[in-house]
């Protein structure tokens, strides 16, 4: 559906995107994830036709649109800065695209009201000037304005960043529903991993304009292809060579102590896993505990490594900082990366000879 090939984008001397290849399938919910300033918005804007790449091509539906102006590309977009029309009311903002299409006004009105209801904007708010809305309400107007047109391709640049958790969840659901109902191909930019992992069919992880990994949420999370992805997505504790060696000794696994090794926070626990598994226990001391409502976050020092882990706040009693404890870890869960290239060490489950 969408293909970016060899895209290079620069602003003056600054190369924001050196060489980007992306392929989004029809009907897919595709997410761009990456640190602030890595070029997500730039990539999206290139796709929308607002930025002309210095090199490379953009194909939509098999058609080369690299030189096509954006009004011909038939993509919808929610802008990171909203780009609402200050001279129009909320209603007029949302109805704008419909009026461009010359929809009948009665139709427009019902479509506008319908979409406004979905993003929780009231009838009174529709009559307001956009400057009279709260930040989150403005963001919803931006979302509604793009959704009301039911575009074939929808580009969303952090569309829910200013909304509270409840509303965000609700709108995520709306987005997903619309997307699957109308088969909208969606490219979604978010800074929220949770959102990315929960909503996406596939995720592309960006770093400095370069795609580090493209894959399903589970693949990205469980088999992070590079050290950057591993660190950027999810939460993991770096392991020391000593810790890895101890793990090898206890379990007989052939992990390379020379590689950069990580353990996802949820993969370590203070209790042996209920269903047994290949977990081994390593002794350690509780360094700190912080309360997070749903769970508490522990840091346990073990064999030189500060292992972070989560303990669900299920009302049970939990060890306090300073006490000795045991950390249970499965060697298979350890993620290992080449210290020079940052690439995943090929076969994680076997010992790897490092140069």
């Amino acid at each position, binding site marked *: 559906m969408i293909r970016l090939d060899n895209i290079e984008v620069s602003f003056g001397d600054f190369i924001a995107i050196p060489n980007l290849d992306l392929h989004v399938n029809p009907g897919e919910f595709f997410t761009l994830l990456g640190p602030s300033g890595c070029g997500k918005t730039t990539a999206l804007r290139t796709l929308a036709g607002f930025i002309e790449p210095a090199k490379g091509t953009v194909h939509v539906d098999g058609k080369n649109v690299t030189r096509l102006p954006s009004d011909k590309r038939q993509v919808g977009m929610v*802008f990171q800065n909203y780009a*609402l029309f200050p001279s129009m009311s909320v209603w007029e903002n949302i109805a704008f695209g419909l*009026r461009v299409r010359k929809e009948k006004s009665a139709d*427009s009105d019902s479509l506008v009201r319908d979409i406004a209801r979905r993003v929780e904007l009231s009838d009174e708010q529709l009559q307001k000037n956009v400057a009279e809305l709260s930040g989150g309400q403005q963001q919803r107007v931006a979302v509604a304005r793009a959704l009301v047109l039911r575009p074939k391709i929808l580009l969303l640049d952090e569309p829910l960043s200013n909304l509270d958790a409840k509303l965000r969840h609700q709108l995520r659901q709306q987005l997903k529903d619309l997307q699957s109902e109308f088969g909208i191909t969606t490219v979604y930019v978010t800074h929220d991993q949770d959102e990315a992992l929960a909503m996406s069919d596939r995720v592309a992880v960006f770093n400095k304009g370069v795609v580090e990994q493209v894959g399903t949420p589970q693949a990205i999370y469980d088999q992070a292809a590079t050290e950057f992805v591993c660190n950027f997505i999810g939460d993991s504790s770096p392991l020391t060579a000593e810790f890895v060696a101890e793990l090898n000794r206890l379990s007989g696994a052939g992990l390379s102590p020379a590689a950069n090794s990580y353990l996802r926070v949820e993969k370590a626990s203070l209790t042996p896993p209920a269903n047994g598994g290949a977990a081994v226990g390593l002794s350690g001391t509780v360094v700190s505990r912080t309360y997070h409502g749903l769970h508490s976050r522990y840091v346990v020092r073990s064999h030189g490594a500060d292992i972070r882990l989560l303990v669900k706040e299920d009302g049970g009693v939990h060890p306090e900082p300073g006490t000795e404890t045991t950390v249970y870890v499965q060697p298979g869960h350890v993620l290992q990366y080449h210290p020079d290239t940052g690439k995943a060490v090929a076969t994680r489950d076997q010992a790897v000879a490092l140069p």
Partner: protein
Amino acid sequence: MRGGSAGNGSSVRSMLRSPFVLMVGAVLTWFIAAFLVWPNLNVLISTFFPDGSFSGRAAEKLFSSQRAMKSLGNSFLLALALSITVNVVGIFIVLVTHYFKIRGSRILFLGYASTFIYGGIVLAAGYKFIYGDKGIVTSLLLTVFPDMDPAWFSGFFAVLVVMTFATTTNHMLFVGNALKGVDYLTIEAARNLGASTWTILRRIVLPMLKPTLFAVTILSFLTGLGALSAPQVLGGREFQTITPMILTFANSAASRDLAALLAVILGLSTILMLAVMSRMEKRGTYYSLSKVSSALQKQRIVNPVANAAVHTIAYLLFALYTLPVVLIVLYSFADGAAIQTGQISAGSLTLDNYVRVLTQQSGLRPFIVSVVYSALATVIAVGGLLFVARLLQKYKNWVASVFEYLLHIPWILPSALLALGLIISYDHPNPLVGGTVLTGTTVILLIAFVTVKIPFTLRMLKASFASVNSSMEEAAAIMGAKTLYVFRRILLPLVLPAAAAIAALNFNTLLDDYDTAIFLAHPLVQPLGLVIKANTDGAEGVEGVANTFVYTVLLMVITGLTMYLVYGRSGQRGAGAGSGTAGKRRGTVPPAPLPIADTRIAEVPDSRAPVQAPVP
């Protein structure tokens, strides 16, 4: 949000890809070639290369003339001084009427706005009636300080004062407008960071107005260079400027090269100034970066002393601005001799002048002709340049720069020479205009009117586009809106107040144009300027001077009316639309009930074409 400022997307390559750009570009290229470059090249060639070879005679003559050099120096001095004083006074009155909470600011506005509607010789005369050696104020002062020099109000100082007040019109219209576009949130933020009123003005507000301030500064500079009436009336022996000389030489075939050379010197220095200022404003961002910006609210001046001082100065200026107008109106009822000797009594005021002017045979016709010409020229210039200005604002590359500078050609030559150029280029069939002859048609004056208004219109429009964030355009484009639609629905509403003001000013200045009309007007369709000139000119008639005043007052009425219709109303609309986020009730305009939104849709022409024609 970034498209505008980035190097990206503004390359020549991408520019030439847009069909809209190509279309506008094609029309523009033709227009520039046919009406800006070719005719003016023709006059310049015929003046500087009279017999095929270049003659350096003009330069030689001019540079060895003490008077020419002194006048030229005076003109530059005046231009530079005006660039400063007009900004000082202009910014002050804009702040007083638009930015600070000042008691009676609406009245003040009307007073300061009086310069919208009159200027030139009458304005200078108005000041002379008040401050001249027989003026009212001077007489008053003389009773207090008998030793005072009655001719204190003359020379450079007087000229500067008068022209300063006369030139603040652009500030009132454009800086006032631009100010409304400043995002109030940034002012709040600055205040929160501890900035004083003065710091906020200097560091936050004024920098955002740079494009507009620069544009009006260039205009002030240009006005100073071209000063004619004020130095003649008030300059005295010491302070005469170059324009009268240019006019004399332009009228004499033998000396036309001198006129052209002088004009080119002035024009090029204006263009140079333009280049410098364009450079200075180049890398800045002049649109709000807020997601949704909020409208300006008037600021209270907290310091009571400062507040009192500002109020005092504001009302003092008010008096300075309005007194001449009052006198002009008064004098328009007096007979010519009384006007010239500066002595009127209540009994000598009659309606005779008006009766004479209004009952002459030509009657209303010239008024109508002028209104139609001015309106047409204004609509064409502003309408056409809206697109051009936006494109130039958006695509910052060398092709755009070339076009921009070419469009300033009319600033280089005085209108008489522009008119001559058109005549000698189009008094025979010319392929540039489809092989027709333009002289003797009604079109040629229209072309000239459009042409002379191009530089001003372009500058001001471009400045006002600088405050438009291009992400608005992008958002509209991605919803499928075509360039024209985006223009009409998104950009136009944002620059409308400025565009309306430009239109009104253009209209007003064209109404009584003489320099162009004298050469190009169709004999059967003569505009007002010719009639005014015939009725007011020279030493030939006592009534002439009185007629000048009558025409001025009549023009004041017309222009005041257009200002009210075009600017006054759109100004109100702008203020109503942009209510802000912050506290207090801003305007008690109730939220529009839904039906209004519906009818607005219906308003869009062809938005619901009844039966869709089967066009592929």
